[in-house]
């Protein structure tokens, strides 16, 4: 485990809590301005959830090319961290929407549906891994499933209906620049946290793989 990475994550996260909960100005145009601060954690958690899924898919490509244990360790570690962060994103989003909106229906929200599909895909990925004993086969089939799932998740966003979910890419909903700085910092902090967790978990997975098959590389 890289100590410096863990320290960096700890420092970034500490600064992030201070910046977003104390320093960031109150948001205008929100019916629940205090609860609004949850979005400094919700958006980065969702970003990490999808990033982690992408990393699992790319590691799957490398796995099919090289059939090594390192890419599989990274894929597994990333999937586990991604599951955690997608649950955080889902939970924080639902809490916030409950405070901000009246009569909010999560199942009519394309981003909620996509996140739910992402969580299901992660769980299926672990179920597949657990059902295969032979390590080489497990690595290979998990990689195939990870790649297929990476195709299904974006498609489920397209297939869901449009919703009242805030969308910063729309001109009438663009984010207040005074708040955007804090969001960017939070995104950075969460990405460092992801890297530190990935490093630690992938090393553990590598040790497990070597114990399982001492003769592999």
């Amino acid at each position, binding site marked *: 485990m890289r100590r410096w990475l863990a320290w960096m994550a700890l420092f970034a996260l500490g600064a992030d809590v201070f910046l977003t909960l104390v320093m960031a100005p109150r948001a205008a145009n929100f019916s629940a301005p205090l609860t609004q601060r949850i979005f400094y954690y919700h958006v980065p958690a969702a970003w990490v959830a999808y990033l982690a899924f992408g990393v699992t898919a790319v590691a799957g490509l490398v796995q099919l090319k090289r059939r090594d244990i390192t890419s599989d360790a990274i894929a597994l570690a990333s999937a586990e961290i991604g599951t955690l962060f997608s649950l955080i994103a889902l939970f924080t989003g639902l809490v916030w929407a409950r405070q901000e909106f009246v009569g909010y229906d999560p199942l009519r929200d394309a981003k909620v549906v996509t996140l739910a599909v*992402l969580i299901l895909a992660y769980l*299926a990925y672990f*179920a597949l891994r657990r059902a295969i004993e032979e390590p080489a086969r497990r690595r290979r089939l998990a990689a195939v499933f990870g790649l297929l799932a990476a195709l*299904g998740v974006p498609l489920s966003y397209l297939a869901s209906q449009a919703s009242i979910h805030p969308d910063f890419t729309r001109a009438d909903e663009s984010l207040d620049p005074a708040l955007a700085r804090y969001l960017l910092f939070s995104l950075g902090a969460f990405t460092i946290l992801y890297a530190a967790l990935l490093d630690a978990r992938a090393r553990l997975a590598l040790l497990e793989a070597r114990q399982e098959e001492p003769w592999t590389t």
Partner: protein
Amino acid sequence: MSALAWWRVAAKDARLELRAREALQPILLTGILVVVVGLLAFHDVEERLPVAAATLWIGLAFAGSLGLARAFGAEKDRGTIDTLLTLPVARGHLYVGKVASSFLTILVVALVLVPLYFAVGGLALPASWPALLLLVALGALGLAATGAMLSLLAAQARSRDALLPVLLAPLVVPLLLAAIHGTMDVLADLPFAEWRPELLILVGYDISFLAASTLLFEAATGA
């Protein structure tokens, strides 16, 4: 045996089914059960079209997943999967052949379920009923494309019959969402422009999963 190898694989499956009739019966019964129970349970609901559309697709997906488990599962049971894999044809043909036979199975189920659905559900047949057939065909193709591939993964794992629905669920959500919304629009006799996005998603889903699975099939067989 080269260019039409996939056809031979599919024809072999169809011939086996015609001789033994072991798969289709439970699959059909499952589909009928889901559709009948669904239509009865939601009989008094005011907005019936959405419920009816969802019921049809849940029935097709459930019945389909039973049939899909057999695509490679049955080969594993009989010990014929190794024979299949040693055939001197490109592996892609095996995948396409299994998609074809799974597609045929789901289509047969749909041909029973859809009329039943109008008879028991007491729904009016929409003027644009050929559109419904198109949606069913595209949906069945997508289910077959994803399911045949996942059946190969599940066949190499423990407790594969329980595993396949778990693997299938997250991957067919986009397909089912588009198919259900499209079916809703067609049942309500809405113009083509209303359900064109759903049609495009179905076509896009079918093409992308067929292409990706053909590419990944080799790796999934263990080559």
